[in-house]
């Protein structure tokens, strides 16, 4: 049951709220980081001296999301925590071969391997297809770096000669990179990072200020005022999406109900803002849940000897016996996952994913290498 927020709470949500209201304190930051670590460490401590864990999964959350508890492995972040990694202590995920995260405290049994995929920007793709945002759809279909394009559009800068991620290092884009002040610093450029974060946060927020409630926005290194400014710039460059969202918000709030593309229903309650926000969120996020459920059901039916490891909402881990060749599985699974999906508004979008195999010796192998 939801409780009234306390004025003197020191939980993460409360401290995040103060921060987004302009509070600034090294102690506050330290406590937030401490509790973030503690939130994972408490479960890992319980796994000490345990041979196996049997997470309880329930696909019964609102919008069809799954909950995983005992332990909540899907909530473990991908940040590298290997004490041997030279980059440990900096925020990075699987940047080097020796990197591993809290997710990797469990692994496949001998004689098994795990196949893992992450759907690429799936909710942004659904939103683009739902709204018919041609620029985004084209960018997705051609593998363009959508965040750089959005940054250029929002800041009214010329587009680079190359639009794929190669633009960050390719010599043909040097002049374009130098045309920025300060010069463009690559894939981790602060402006690109800001618009990427704001873009995802904006997907579900009703207003530019609403973006401040998004998780992770405080790590952007910007003041709330700067974030709102960036968000407004971003929204101005996404007229189609904004107009479509407004239409869906209104429909959902009026009808008091929202459906995913595949027909999952959610009744909506509260005031107009709450109904509008939940309705749009369900339409996009719930569609991902349904998409994943369909894949899971087909996969189990095709490979009855295999089994589910974890459903990460927009990613999946699945265990196969080693005598089931990866190539064979991929021949079945890749077309099931990576395909064109048409939204109820008639716009198709191509779903893509990044693939990985995790072996019993815990080595992770990107699937490109296997191919």
């Amino acid at each position, binding site marked *: *049951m*939801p409780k009234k927020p306390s*004025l*003197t709470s*020191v*939980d993460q949500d409360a401290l995040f709220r*103060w921060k987004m*209201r*302009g*509070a*600034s304190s*090294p*102690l*506050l930051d*330290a*406590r937030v980081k*401490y509790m973030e*670590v503690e939130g994972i*460490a408490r479960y*890992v401590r319980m*796994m*000490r001296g*345990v*041979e*196996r*864990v*049997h*997470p*309880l*999964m329930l*696909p*019964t959350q*609102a919008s*069809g999301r799954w909950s995983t508890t005992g332990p909540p*492995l899907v909530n473990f972040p991908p940040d590298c*925590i*290997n*004490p*041997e990694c030279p980059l440990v*202590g900096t925020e990075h995920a699987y940047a080097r071969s020796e990197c591993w995260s*809290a997710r990797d*405290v*469990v692994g*496949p049994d001998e004689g098994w391997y795990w196949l893992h995929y992450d759907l690429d920007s799936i909710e942004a793709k659904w939103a683009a297809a739902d709204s018919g945002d041609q620029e985004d759809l084209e960018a997705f279909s051609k593998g363009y770096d959508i965040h750089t394009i959005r940054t250029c559009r929002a800041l009214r800068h010329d587009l680079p000669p190359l639009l794929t991620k190669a633009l960050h290092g390719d010599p043909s884009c040097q002049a374009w990179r130098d045309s920025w002040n300060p010069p463009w610093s690559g894939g981790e450029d602060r402006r690109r990072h800001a618009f990427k974060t704001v873009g995802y946060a904006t997907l579900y927020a009703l207003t530019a*200020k609403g973006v401040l409630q998004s998780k992770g926005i405080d790590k952007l290194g910007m003041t709330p005022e700067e974030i709102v400014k960036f968000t407004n710039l971003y929204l101005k460059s996404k007229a189609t999406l904004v107009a479509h969202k407004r239409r869906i918000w209104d429909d959902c709030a009026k009808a008091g109900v929202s*459906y995913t593309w*595949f*027909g*999952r*229903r*959610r*009744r909506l*309650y*509260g005031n107009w803002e709450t109904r509008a926000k939940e309705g749009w969120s369900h339409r996009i996020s719930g569609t991902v849940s349904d998409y994943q*459920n*369909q894949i*899971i*059901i087909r996969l189990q039916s095709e490979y009855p000897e295999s*089994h*589910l490891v974890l459903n990460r909402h927009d990613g999946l881990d699945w265990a196969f016996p080693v005598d089931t060749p990866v190539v064979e599985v991929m021949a079945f699974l890749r077309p099931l996952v990576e395909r064109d999906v048409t939204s109820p508004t008639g716009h198709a979008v191509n779903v893509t994913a990044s693939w990985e195999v995790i072996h019993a010796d815990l080595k992770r192998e990107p699937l490109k290498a296997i191919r």
Partner: protein
Amino acid sequence: MPLPKPPTCHGCPFNTFSRWFTPDEYVEGAEVLVLSQNPGEDEEQGRRLTHYDMDGRRSYEPCQPSPLTGTTGYDLTRKYLPLAGLERGKDVSLANPIRCRPHGRNDLPPVTDKTLRQAVEHCQFHHYKPPASTRLVIAEGAYALFASTGEDGTESPGHKINRGVEGWRGWLLPWNPPPRARVTFNDVWVPSSTPSSSPWVLPTYHLAYLYRAPWYTPVSQRDWSKVQAILQGKWPEPFPEIHPLPPETWPRRSAFDTEFYPGADGTDQLVRYSLAWRGRQGEPYLHVVEADNLVQPVTIPPEITTVFHQVESDVGHLRGLLNPGTKVSIEDTMYLHAVLWPDLDHTLDFLGSLYARTNRWKHLLRTNPRVYSGGDALGTWDSFVPLEAERDRDPRVRRVYYEYQLPLASIIHKSRRYGLRVVPDRVDAALRSFDTAQADQEMAAQAHSGWPINLGSSQQVARELYEVEAVHLNPITGRVRRA
């Protein structure tokens, strides 16, 4: 005009916390009494909310200080009393277990607080004088539940069975106010049909709570809709007789549940199973069969439909009871409810509070395991029937349930049975890493605060952040920061 506290308030631990008193509103001859929490400012000052204008502004009229005249009372009078077939001032009394506003605020200490409990007892003893005609008390929220039954959320029998307002909501309880000892339930409680001096208690959410959790609105509406059925003796039905042996012929459609414990070899050891269904006239059939009686021969049709609540744990036991070739069509009330009402809880206790035709059984986990087990099967059946009808009214929902939701049950069960291998070296290394990261943050915090603050201590951090640094205050205005 507010009313000063009467002399009977002397001795109450809340007496000195405020000056004003809000008396109850009794209606002679009324069979129903709504017990709320404590008065708000409108109730205390004697203002009745009469309407909202187009911009949401409120209009008031003066009235005698009385319960439920503000926002909550407005909704109660216009939305919820009509659902219960009641009309304010005519056939329903209104009361609060605390009749003042301590420190001029609506918020009260938690219901487990000793002072609060003393205040409730004192206030009820001196000021609660309902008409003799009162047969049903609708207890709105945790404080009213405590004041009318002594139930305060403690002493759960286990399995997350809630004995607070979240758990008792929608069920019927005997009137048993503190300081009487709490009732020990050994059986499903059924109100006596003979006239009695003690009313019954129907707990429900406090209406103000619905402003914070609006998705529970249909739940509250359902609770209020039960009132006439209760008064007319139509709900709850008596708990049916339990047959200790399997039926001679296994029903074509039924609900099934098991009790088991994990055996040493890793398999589940069946303790008993329960089987329930209703006939054409709604007559219940309930069998609770102990593991010792499993050999009883029964005739089993070649095709059956079985309803479970969380099928994963029970379906294996069912297959063990049936002929190998029996075709079982599976239905699951948890998955079905999750598709129909995704924002609500999906436990059987919760579903029962909405749909069961009998009274609560889940709290009998320890005191009456056979009835507990039988209630699980019957409650599953009673929940399934209305949910099934609702499912079939929306073809899209039906499709999601059968194609994207129900097939997940066996996949999840299989996954859970396998489990995941824990890598001990990684666990140790991860914990070292976490310890280092936390130590770094603690050092930074200590350097900033100037004393060896423990970042894991909520008390120490709260004191430093709110009392010393005052992060919640705007440094320019000195007021609490607003979004």
